[in-house]
């Protein structure tokens, strides 16, 4: 019995010894700092990249969208929101041409209300007042050309991945105001996220300029338009 336990003890000790030798052996791997430094001076110019196909094919595909936007700037007495639609023809992943239509919904700013109320009060009291003239924008139509030079992909809260493109756009069209129509041009950029083969979303920020016509004459209006749209790729 004693011999048996002694044999087992010897066996365990030998096994432990061999494991210790193995641990030392594996710890010898990896080189020392000087060797690693010398090896780095001989490094070849190797490159590793991830090369993937686009998950959404955008060659000769039509995109229809609905958009909502806010306008900053323009007439100082008016807050304008947009609701509209878009139609884009993707020629290839880098270029698209399209059209935008916006219906404008206007309301007076607090300063606009103040000016109007002051003028109205003065008029009622028979005092001189300044007539405030506003040429509300009613709708816009634009033709745009978009260029998509930058791509990327998003991890959507660990639920899925979506590829996106950042784009720049330029366009020309006309604004229909209360006084008539006026040419307009626009330039800006945005991000298009291709959620699936048929669903898209865009966030666009662009500068737009047009002329309106008030009682004192024509004036140039500059504005920044921010649009969020959801679309379907056909």
């Amino acid at each position: 019995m004693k011999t048996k336990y002694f044999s087992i003890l010897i066996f365990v000790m030998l096994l432990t010894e061999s494991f210790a030798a193995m641990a030392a052996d594996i710890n010898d791997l990896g080189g020392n700092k000087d060797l690693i430094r010398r090896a780095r001076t001989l490094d070849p110019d190797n490159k590793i990249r991830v090369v993937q196909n686009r998950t959404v094919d955008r060659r000769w595909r039509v995109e229809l969208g609905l958009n909502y936007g806010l306008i900053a700037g323009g007439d100082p007495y008016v807050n304008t929101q947009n609701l509209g639609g878009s139609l884009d023809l993707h020629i290839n992943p880098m270029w698209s041409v399209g059209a935008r239509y916006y219906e404008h919904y206007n309301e007076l700013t607090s300063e606009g209300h103040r000016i109007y109320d002051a003028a109205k009060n003065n008029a009622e009291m028979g005092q001189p007042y300044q007539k405030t003239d506003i040429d509300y924008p009613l709708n816009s139509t634009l033709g745009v050309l978009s260029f998509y030079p930058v791509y990327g992909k998003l991890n959507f809260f660990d639920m899925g991945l979506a590829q996106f493109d950042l784009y720049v756009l330029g366009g020309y069209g006309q604004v229909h105001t209360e006084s008539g129509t006026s040419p307009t041009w626009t330039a800006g950029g945005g991000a298009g996220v291709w959620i699936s083969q048929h669903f898209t979303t865009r966030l666009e920020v662009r500068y737009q300029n047009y002329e309106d016509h008030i009682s004192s004459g024509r004036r140039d209006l500059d504005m920044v338009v921010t649009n969020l749209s959801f679309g379907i790729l056909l």
Partner: protein
Amino acid sequence: MFAIKKMSVLTTNFSTAAITFISVLALSSSLFAGQAIKFQSETQLFDLVLAHAQKNRVVEALAILDKLIVRAARVSSTSAKSDLFIMTKARLLFQLGDLDKSEKTYASISKSSEYWLEAQEERAHISGRQGDFAKALAQLQSVMASPFESVVGPEPYFVSALTSLRICDYSAIFKTNENFKKRFVPRLQRMKTLVLSDVLQERTVSELISSLNKNHPLSFENIGPRAKDLPRNMHRDKDLRRLSMKPRTALRDRAIAERIQILAKQEISEIENIVSKLHIVEAEAIQSIYLAESEAGERNAQGSIAGDGDTLIFPKTDETWLDELTHYAVRVEKCPNIKTQGDRVSNNKKRASL
């Protein structure tokens, strides 16, 4: 023949006796004649394949394996058994020297298969054999991605180090060996603990063993997160699977514990083997560094990273996105062309011998 006749006479059920007689006759004749019989079980046929392969009768083994693959595909196209047959076919083709067909066979293993990682690793091995080191390194990026760290064995590290040596990328060899150490020093410690201790006293192991029964046999899913503390691929061990199906008794649990210890020893032995090989690669690299510092030469490129308007190219970072697996492209610069003919021949011979 007398023994077989006597057995059939003693059996009460004549049809069972007849089938038994014919099966034994068929098995013995098929072992010599190399012909598979339709009513043999998959296990018997697969054992026959392995027997042929061990005797280097690869063509006969492949013939039987093709029938097995067709039979398995009729039941399910994505079963683990079917994938095992495909892996075996790929390995037999490699043994035969048909590297192209072997590579194509490995490529047919789907990403959802439990053999996918091994298939990628063995594809990288083939690419290295064919001299396409850029492709080998690209394939190894998927195998050695961080999500698979706890599942992958030591062999891919050796393939990676060897490929880096073949293209004279010495700092990559040291980096691979460092990563190997980080991964396998704790792993060795864990296996050592399994071998030296009473496994049934370990909470991880005892919980697993107590959960195993006929309705809940050993599988990768049942092992779950405990896999990092247990011998690699133990769910594939035939003896363990057989034992796990038996009703729970102290004897069964002890047998499972002992089998786990044997598998732990085998894994230690596997790691030890790879450590030796990595030492050889490192020694060759150190010698080559001294030589390369004194020799000038131009490096030729291999592989390309190219895309068109429909491809996206991203840099590889430490963070792995699972959609990027198998989408790596590598461009390497191979060993410098040494000016002296004698030097070129001797250096290439040394590298090829590894």
